[in-house]
């Protein structure tokens, strides 16, 4: 019996073939590619008629901006929206899943969804995954019981607040809110305050940037204002293109034709039946 080992195809499941190589690379200092995080400034506040949510639009992968104009304000229900910070895939998947569940719930009950329902569905899911689903959310909406604003942390804890900020730019935005927020703001004042807070995050935090997205939710009405403010408008390169001042001089021309090599194939046997 020969003792040569036969290459068997993998039976399925995780293949550990590359783990040694990865370990070796890590020891030599090569970093594995990072996943896309949203860095981010997201805010929400309650004004006299409802809730205003705001977000920046920069998505980062490590120190590279991978999306200059992404959407961080996610639809949950006709009267509820959610801003997401953290790992982009996690925030999108979790808000999409709860959106689906809320839709089914609306069919069964025949009623408008409540913000606390969305809150409970989100926090139960995040708690179940013990913080591995890295989604930090600002949830806001107006339902029969009035306007509500909540923050949800990746481990599943929540806060109910009149104004809230999350993400890497949250401190810059919170500084603006703490100094200028008061109860009973009008819609104009609320929008201006939210824009100021997001801009504070955009200009002072590296993880946030580009434009300001807003969502204003009132009883029975919502306005999704995509790119409400564009403080970092990118001026494009001139359409004339570049001109080079000095032309390249031709010093020598040498043409070598390649030998033609043609193989003549005799009419081969017809394919066997």
């Amino acid at each position: 019996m020969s003792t040569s080992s036969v290459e068997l195809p993998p039976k399925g499941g995780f293949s550990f073939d590359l783990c040694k190589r990865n370990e070796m690379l890590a020891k030599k200092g090569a970093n594995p590619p990072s996943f896309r995080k949203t860095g981010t400034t997201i805010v929400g506040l309650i004004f006299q008629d409802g809730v205003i949510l705001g977000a920046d639009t920069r998505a980062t992968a490590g120190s590279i901006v991978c999306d200059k104009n992404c959407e961080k304000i996610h639809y949950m229900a006709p009267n509820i929206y959610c801003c997401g910070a953290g790992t982009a895939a996690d925030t999108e998947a979790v808000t999409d899943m709860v959106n689906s569940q809320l839709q089914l719930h609306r069919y069964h009950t025949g009623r408008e969804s409540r913000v606390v329902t969305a809150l409970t569905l989100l926090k139960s899911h995040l708690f179940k995954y013990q913080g591995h689903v890295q989604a930090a959310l600002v949830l806001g909406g107006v339902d029969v019981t009035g306007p509500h604003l909540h923050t949800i942390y990746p481990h599943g804890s929540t806060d109910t607040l009149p104004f809230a900020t999350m993400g890497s730019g949250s401190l810059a935005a919170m500084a603006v809110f703490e100094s200028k927020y008061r109860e009973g703001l009008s819609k104009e004042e609320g929008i201006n305050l939210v824009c100021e807070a997001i801009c504070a995050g955009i200009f002072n935090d590296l993880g946030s940037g580009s434009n300001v997205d807003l969502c204003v939710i009132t009883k029975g009405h919502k306005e999704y204002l995509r790119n409400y403010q564009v403080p970092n408008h990118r001026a494009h390169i001139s359409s004339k293109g570049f001109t080079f001042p000095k032309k390249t001089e031709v010093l020598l021309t040498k043409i070598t034709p390649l030998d033609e090599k043609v193989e003549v194939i005799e009419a081969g046997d017809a394919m066997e039946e």
Partner: protein
Amino acid sequence: MGDSQYSFSLTTFSPSGKLVQIEHALTAVGSGQTSLGIKAANGVVIATEKKLPSILVDETSVQKIQCMTPNIGVVYSGMGPDFRVLVRKSRKQAEQYHRLYKEPIPVTQLVRETAAVMQEFTQSGGVRPFGVSLLVAGYDDKGPQLYQVDPSGSYFSWKASAMGKNVSNAKTFLEKRYTDDMELDDAVHTAILTLKEGFEGQISGKNIEIGIIGADKNFRVLTPNEIEDYLAEVE
């Protein structure tokens, strides 16, 4: 009946090649309240009788026509509780399809999945078939569509159909009255007249239910007042 020895077990064929339990399920459907559907050129209408067992029942709490997605609605003949379970399952399937493909589920797909559920219950141990036949009305990219799904899990596309107690009279009436280029309003009038044919007692906005879907792809159930308006037009 010679088949009676085989009529208790659902998963056993009788010598004549029938599954007797399904035949019985169809009988249950046939003794349910009449319902019908008509496909017009620019929409679909489904309607049913809503005869309540006593005048003490609050008729606003009963809704026989349900919507499964914003552009697909359904009505039944037969056992109400079985209908509720099917609608719940179908809604979930429609939502799962939407999550997977990010498109609203086409009418044929939803009908197929609902029919598959009904068929499962004809080939499993310890369960009985659903005692309902469904009329599914929808409007998607392929235009207006009307499907009937039976307890056996078979489904058919119809231009106009009826089920329940008064099925033969209703179908004859529809055959005479149906035209391919009917508009949605005409279809509603025809539906009301068909229901009126076999209706015992005084027909009104409170003892029939009508659901329509037009080119706006929004399924909705008419309010009793709207039904009264249509009834007045028909008189």
